[in-house]
């Protein structure tokens, strides 16, 4: 018994814990209580104590956007725990707290890591040569010109890339070097030869914007990333005319049937996985479709394990079941009403004779009905009225979106009409149609199946409905339609029955039918609350667009899209910049000049890294036998060049001439620039650089990478990057391929195109190891910035827990410094110049009307005239004041006030916002609203976006109302007076405001789901028909046989590229090679963290099945080598029965910097996961100029897919050297 006050030396808190001064020992030796008053436990108390807690987040390219508390003690960051103060989701739902993952929880390790980049570094051999030339010549620009112009000296520093030898340098010196390289390149080769790569702005908007703003001002090329990462689901723009829009994670809770399809939610969506596990308790059925027993499978009521890449077959067969049981055998009013109103299924498609049957061609339009159909008639689609049988041109198609006549009519109101879904029973005839199939045939183009549709004549053309075509495509026989049809679900001979799919996927037909049926039935009884969460497992394939269209068919037929708890959930790299309007206009410096040089990343790298030189197949390999031979004899590079000159895709570097020179020439000739460019192109004197990527004048010269690990993470075809772009050692054994027809082939491939590679980072990635300059970045706990995501509806802030340590700097400040250094040198070398941009036909602008019917007309082949903005890119000039870049970086330019800000076709006027910002941010000496610091940039982004400024969202809806003629502005009215400031986001995650910038609604506190506004408010989708489209009628889609959803198998790499191994039977096994996201690296990077290494196996691994391991005598943890024509990888084997035979996984972003020995195969350092991959362009991803097939940054463009690849695995000697 102790009087607590009598315990010496103890404060009341400690005393409260001590009740005994003696041990109390129980009879049988159990010491139950023993408390010592000595205060020994202070050690743990002190460890827990801290001085402050600072809110920040992780700016990595994952979609987490989790709010974290960073603990600081004695001026040092100690650790981080998740914030738990997200605004509530409501009383009947789980909350967002605590969002985070083990990767994020260990991030603070980097702050003081021994591999933290603390100072600027330059490779010694370069720095020495630079200093010599710089001091001798006095002028930095001339020094850079001389150094890079001297092949021997240039070769010397390029060869040294990736081989150590960094030396410390000072910021001023390095920035001057970089500025000199930029100025010289702009002057000598053109601004479009200066390139920037930084992905996923949502993860740190100001940091992204700093670099892109600088590059936009000088005319540099900005590479897209969403398509490059193969995360962009091409099907989304194709079907919806929308990049990607998905339900927030809390909406999973509203689902009653959730299929996780190739999406390993516990690993890739860790912070939100609980909504899935918890929804099960509310009675939601959960299905996992995964080739392996992934982390998510253990939560699933059913596990379907198709062979990798056959998901499309599975989905098509489910679609067969849904169409059979819910559209043919009986009709579900909810489904029928939905597809009539919100999809293109009732619209008429022309049928043209081909051989002894017909093929579908194009949508019938108002232009087909009469000669005088009025404005934009070729973009107004037609259906038959169920009652009258007469053709109707309903509101809402693209023809109503632009032009005066469409004012107030761009809406989905059917005005009392009931569209006829089918012509069955109405048509005069039934005709045979030939449709493509790809499960058989001598090429990737497959073969043909013959089925039948009811048809009738309208406007002198034979037509049928999209629905009737869909029934034929899916093989659902009706009435006495002609053609060959499956005999039933058990008929394995005909696409797309469950039995047919079983043979391809290995999933039992009965299971396929059951899941398809359950999915639809659930949607019927819940009115659309069935959901498919799809992941990279199904999206990184060459034909992912087709896989996805098969998925989307399921959610569209069942009326799930635009419904809370239903629809697609594409959770693949999609990160939503919620305050998109302010962000993109500031990031691309649209306050000073418009537009900027956005570039499709994959097309750029394909040429820049010379991967185009290694093709063994051509585009015609993919053509359907029903195509018109448009790709005959043409390589993928040829297709890309055509897309460039027809104005479909951007193409930078653009011409084989400095664009500044083009302007000078036009001025000298006294003609308009556009006229001059057209003349020069027509004469053949001027060519697109994409037609001759091997010409040194066409090389990209200066590349800056920030917030990214290009060479250790996303760089598909890594070895080609190293060899051709950098001139470093590379392992590829690939032989050169078929020569293109139009693109010029040069016998000698260049090694080392790039003059300067800079990376801004806080750790030594592969990109840093190979860079010429490594600049020390502040981490995410050392700067101000903004974060948002599609997974939750909040915006929140980064805050510095400590000031940037050592000589590190925030990205924002790095680019301000670079801009200043650039301006100083530019004043002497560049001054004011006119830049000439070739701008592709843009999405959400009247450019969508440029090429009616999606007919391909090539001016170069004399099929039409070269008309800028119609048959070729728009030619736009920008006056650049190169000496003013530093100054302009820091202030908002005049164009916001003059032109407003335009997002997705809606223009926002921002007068009051600029006044308000001037008061908050202050002004520059030149009188512009200040952006001099990152927090001011954040403030401006928030003020200029509808999601964070209720006045703007209301204004935007009012603008839109004038076009749609429907009521919308009430969606934002509840928040019209709300303004989210940067201070708000610093204090707590802030819920955003419903805005026309996005398609869903948060109004009244509901969960965000994509296209809710379209469905509930009759707002059209941004497509040709204004509806969700099953049918696509561009010429190239016809050529590829992809007018309708179809199953296209993974590319047959063995057939195209031959056996990859050395043929050592028993010692080698050839397997499918997949690179899913890792559990032990922060998203696609950051695997080098000590905690993650401790919890994984401490270096690169490849997961193998028991069967494959046994075949080549590999035990768990043995060293193995994986190789194919593209490269070599060394790793340890993880042998597990959760892996299916015939497939290995090397988890993404196994960088080459940790525990990677030398290979036996080559004697050099083993490669990264992307050493085994190589790019392949799918021609349909290049389409442009037509309706939803028009270009926008990260909206359309070829994907950098990599899943179709195969590799050889062999057990190597177990002694390794480094």
């Amino acid at each position, binding site marked *: 018994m102790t009087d607590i006050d009598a315990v010496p030396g103890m404060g009341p*808190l400690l*005393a409260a*814990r001590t*009740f005994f001064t003696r041990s109390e020992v129980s009879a*049988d030796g*159990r*010491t139950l209580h*023993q408390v*010592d008053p000595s205060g*020994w*436990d202070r*050690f743990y108390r002190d*460890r*827990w104590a801290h001085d402050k807690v600072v809110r920040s987040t992780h700016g990595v390219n994952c979609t987490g956007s989790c709010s974290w508390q960073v603990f600081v003690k004695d001026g040092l960051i100690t650790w981080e*725990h*998740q914030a738990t103060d997200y605004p509530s989701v409501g009383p009947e739902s789980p909350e967002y707290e*605590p969002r985070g*993952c*083990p990767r994020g929880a260990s991030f603070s390790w980097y702050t003081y890591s021994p*591999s933290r980049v603390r100072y600027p570094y330059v490779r010694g051999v370069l720095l020495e040569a630079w200093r010599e030339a710089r001091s001798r010549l006095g002028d930095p620009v001339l020094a850079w010109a001389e150094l890079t112009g001297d092949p021997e000296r240039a070769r010397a520093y390029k060869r*040294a890339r990736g081989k150590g*030898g*960094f030396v410390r340098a000072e910021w001023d010196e390095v920035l001057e070097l970089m500025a000199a390289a930029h100025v010289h390149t702009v002057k000598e080769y053109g601004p479009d030869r200066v390139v920037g790569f930084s992905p996923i702005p949502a993860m740190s908007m100001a940091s992204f914007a700093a670099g892109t703003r600088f590059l936009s001002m000088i005319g540099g090329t900005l590479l897209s990333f969403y398509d490059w990462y193969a995360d962009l689901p091409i099907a989304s723009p194709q079907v919806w005319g929308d990049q990607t829009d998905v339900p927030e994670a809390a909406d999973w809770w509203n689902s009653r*049937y959730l299929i996780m399809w190739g999406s390993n939610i*516990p*690993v890739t969506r860790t912070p939100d996985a609980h909504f899935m596990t*918890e929804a*099960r*308790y*509310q*009675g939601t*059925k959960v299905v996992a479709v995964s080739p392996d027993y992934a*982390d998510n499978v253990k939560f699933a*009521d*059913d*596990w*379907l394990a198709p062979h990798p890449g056959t998901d499309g077959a599975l989905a098509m067969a489910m679609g067969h079941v849904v169409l059979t049981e819910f559209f043919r055998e009986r009709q579900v009013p909810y489904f029928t009403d939905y597809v009539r109103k919100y999809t293109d299924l009732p619209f008429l498609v022309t049928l043209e004779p081909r051989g002894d049957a017909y093929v579908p061609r194009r949508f019938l339009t108002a232009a087909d009905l009469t000669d005088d159909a009025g404005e934009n008639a070729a973009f107004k689609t037609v259906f038959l009225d169920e009652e009258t049988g007469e053709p109707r041109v309903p509101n809402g198609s693209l023809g109503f979106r632009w032009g005066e006549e469409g004012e107030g009519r761009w809406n989905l109101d059917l005005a009392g009409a009931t569209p006829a879904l089918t012509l069955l029973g109405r048509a005069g005839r039934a005709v045979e149609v030939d449709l493509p199939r790809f499960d058989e045939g001598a090429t990737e183009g497959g073969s043909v199946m013959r089925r039948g549709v009811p048809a009738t004549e309208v406007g002198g053309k034979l037509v049928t409905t999209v629905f009737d075509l869909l029934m034929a495509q899916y093989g659902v026989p009706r009435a006495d339609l002609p053609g060959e049809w499956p005999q039933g679900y058990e008929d394995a001979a005909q696409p797309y029955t469950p039995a047919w799919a079983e043979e391809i996927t290995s999933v039992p*037909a*009965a299971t396929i*039918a*059951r899941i398809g049926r359950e999915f*639809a*039935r659930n949607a019927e009884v819940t009115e659309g609350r069935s959901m498919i969460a799809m992941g990279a497992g199904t999206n990184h394939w060459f034909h992912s667009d087709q896989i996805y269209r098969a998925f989307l068919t399921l959610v569209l037929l069942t009326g799930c899209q635009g419904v809370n708890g239903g629809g697609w959930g594409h959770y693949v790299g999609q990160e939503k910049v919620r305050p998109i309007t302010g962000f993109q206009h500031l990031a691309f410096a649209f306050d000073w000049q418009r537009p900027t040089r956005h570039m499709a990343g994959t097309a750029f790298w394909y040429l820049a890294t010379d991967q185009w030189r290694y093709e063994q197949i051509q585009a015609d390999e993919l053509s359907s036998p029903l195509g018109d031979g448009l790709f005959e004899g043409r390589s993928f590079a040829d297709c890309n060049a055509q897309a460039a000159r027809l104005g479909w895709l951007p193409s930078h570097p653009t011409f084989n001439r400095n664009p500044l020179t083009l302007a000078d020439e036009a001025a000298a000739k006294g003609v308009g620039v556009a006229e001059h460019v057209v003349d020069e192109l027509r004469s053949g004197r001027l060519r697109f650089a994409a037609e001759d990527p091997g010409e040194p004048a066409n090389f990209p010269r200066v590349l800056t990478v920030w917030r990214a690990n290009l060479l250790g993470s996303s760089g598909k075809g890594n070895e080609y990057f190293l060899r051709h772009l950098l001139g470093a050692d590379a392992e590829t054994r690939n032989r050169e391929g078929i020569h293109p027809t139009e693109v010029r082939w040069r016998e000698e491939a260049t090694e080392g195109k790039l003059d300067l590679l800079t990376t801004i980072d806080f750790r030594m990635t592969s990109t840093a190891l190979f860079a010429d300059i490594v600049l020390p970045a502040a981490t995410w706990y050392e700067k101000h910035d903004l974060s948002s995501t599609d997974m939750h509806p909040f915006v929140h802030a980064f805050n510095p827990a400590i000031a940037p340590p050592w000589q590190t700097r925030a990205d924002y400040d790095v680019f301000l410094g670079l801009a200043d250094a650039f301006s100083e040198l530019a004043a002497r070398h560049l001054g004011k110049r006119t830049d000439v941009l070739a701008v592709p036909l843009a999405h959400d602008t009247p450019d969508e009307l440029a090429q009616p019917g999606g007919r391909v007309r090539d001016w170069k082949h004399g099929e039409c005239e070269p008309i800028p903005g119609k048959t070729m890119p728009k030619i736009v000039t920008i006056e650049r004041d190169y000496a003013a870049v530093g100054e302009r970086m820091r202030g908002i330019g005049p164009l916001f006030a003059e032109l407003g800000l335009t997002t997705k076709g809606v223009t926002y006027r921002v007068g009051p916002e600029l006044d308000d910002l001037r008061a908050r941010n202050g002004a520059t000496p030149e009188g512009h609203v200040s952006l001099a610091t990152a927090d001011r940039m954040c403030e401006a982004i928030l003020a200029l976006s509808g999601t964070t400024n209720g006045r703007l969202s209301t204004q935007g809806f009012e603008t839109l109302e004038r076009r749609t003629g429907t009521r919308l502005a009430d969606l934002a009215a509840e928040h019209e007076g709300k303004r989210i400031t940067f201070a708000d986001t610093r204090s707590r995650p802030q819920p955003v405001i419903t805005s026309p910038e996005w398609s869903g609604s948060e109004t009244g506190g509901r969960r965000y789901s994509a296209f809710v506004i379209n469905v509930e408010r009759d707002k059209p989708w941004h497509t040709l028909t204004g509806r969700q489209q099953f049918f696509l009628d561009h010429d190239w889609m016809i050529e590829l046989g992809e007018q309708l959803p179809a199953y296209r198998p993974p590319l047959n790499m063995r057939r195209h590229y031959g056996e990859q191994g050395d043929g050592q039977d028993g010692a080698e096994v050839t397997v499918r090679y997949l690179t899913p996201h890792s*559990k032990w690296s922060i998203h696609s990077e950051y695997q*080098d963290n*000590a905690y993650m290494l*401790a919890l994984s196996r*401490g270096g690169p*691994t490849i997961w193998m099945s*028991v069967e494959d391991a046994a075949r080549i005598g590999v035990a*768990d943890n043995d060293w193995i080598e994986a190789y194919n024509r593209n490269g070599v990888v060394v790793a340890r084997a993880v*042998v*597990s*029965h*959760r*892996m299916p035979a015939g497939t290995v996984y090397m988890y993404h972003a196994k960088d080459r*910097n*940790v*525990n990677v020995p030398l290979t036996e195969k080559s004697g050099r350092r083993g490669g990264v996961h992307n050493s085994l991959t190589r790019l392949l362009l799918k021609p349909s991803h290049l389409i442009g100029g037509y309706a939803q097939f028009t270009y926008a940054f990260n909206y359309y463009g070829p994907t950098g897919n990599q899943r179709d690849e195969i590799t050889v695995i062999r057990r190597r000697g177990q002694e390794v050297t*480094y």
Partner: protein
Amino acid sequence: MRVMAQVAMVMNLDKCIGCHTCSVTCKQTWTNRDGVEYVWFNNVETKPGVGYPKRYEDQDRWHGGWQLDGRGRLKLRAGGRIKRLLNLFSNPDLPTLDDYYEPATYDYDTLINAPAGPHTPVIRPKSAITGRDMAITWGANWEDDLGGAPEHAPADPNLAAMAEKVAMEFDKTFMFHLPRICEHCLNPACVAACPSGAMYKREEDGIVLVDQERCRGWRMCVSSCPYKKVYVNHKTGKAEKCTFCFPRIEAGQPTVCAETCVGRLRYLGLILYDADAVLDAARVTDPRDLLEAQRRVFLDPEDPAVIAAARAGGISEDWIEAARRSPIYRLAMRYRVALPLHPEYRTLPMVWYIPPLSPVLDAVTGVGADADDPDNVFHAITDLRIPLEYLASLFSAGDTEVVAGVLMKLSAMRAYMRARTIDGTVATDLLESAGMTAADMEDMYRLLAIAKYDERYVVPAAHREDAAALSAQAGGCSLDGDGGPGMSDFHPTGVTGRRGDGRLGLKLFVGKGGQA
């Protein structure tokens, strides 16, 4: 009855996503320092698997926990005082570093400092213990997601004990994750084994701690803990273990592992228990009776007699109120879905688990729910991939009925809620089969599914003004009368139908309007 309060935890394994965030936040906060590189107060194991340290569950090897001697008395498996004294200097039951793993670090600065050379710089593993180059052959989480399972997992003691052989084949794959911290047992073997009196269980909240000043590094605690959750700091030579984040608990905050649990599967709350009943509970003869024996030690916080005794014992009103709101009590006692880990160790652990439902069919054969009725979407729990015997080995000393009862209740909840949320149907047959009222079913659903922060964690802050009163209670004013107030009518009825003649069969179709 002597009423005492303990902070206890329940983890719902059915929600664990295996992310290991708990491990990382715990390690960052408590053990990212020299001497404890290999120590994870919180770790997550993939089951089946041998765990960390290897095969720690094999008490024939490690002699952890308690056993009954010939006369039915409790004694440490490690042996009596004399035997333990004899082994002070050469404890044969101590895991070696190999049983844990040799922690690695890397020569990180090489990446920046490497001179110009023939190859791309790389960092390679160095032993964190010796500093020498090493090959990584095992780790804290080597078996994650069944990595190497065909080779290693057959040695999982829970598998070895099973009558039916588990094949490590793709089609039959199952797994779940098992996060583990110190169990803060009611009858802690580590405390009993400590020769120095350095280990103790705190009176006010039951947290088991090692007094770092008293610890003499004898390591008897390490071998005696059957969960191997006491570790040696190889720098100080002293024992360290999970502290239940006592500085946070005292402030009314959840432990770090709980608060940062992204799966939202951890619950923290008070259990009132009868300190005088602990010993008897720990020495019931049949290990399968240990679960119910331990449940009988727990006191009903709604029972006026218990409340009176608690008050008399100096437990403050807000603690009593917290005990009444305790999610632990609800999960372990009211809904009876939480179970102790390895009750057969007889330590009466206080971190309990809801076993995983894992309702997956055979992926290949396509058998399962009634294919003709698309509204019957769930499978019977007889179709579960995880063998009941395996779960029973972990959570009920081998009694599969206990585990089945819990799983049945969880699946009944899913079917019940599906019917209710789709068309408002109240499936009374499901309530009957689960032995629950509609209100209880929905309360359980809310606690498991909606699980708001304030309901997951009910942790009262420490009272300094109550110290004197509690101290007085401990000094001899305990209410330790036979049975204690209220004990006589404390009969936990078999709401799972687990005991007595009310047993329910395993087969339970839980579709809409599901029926047993």
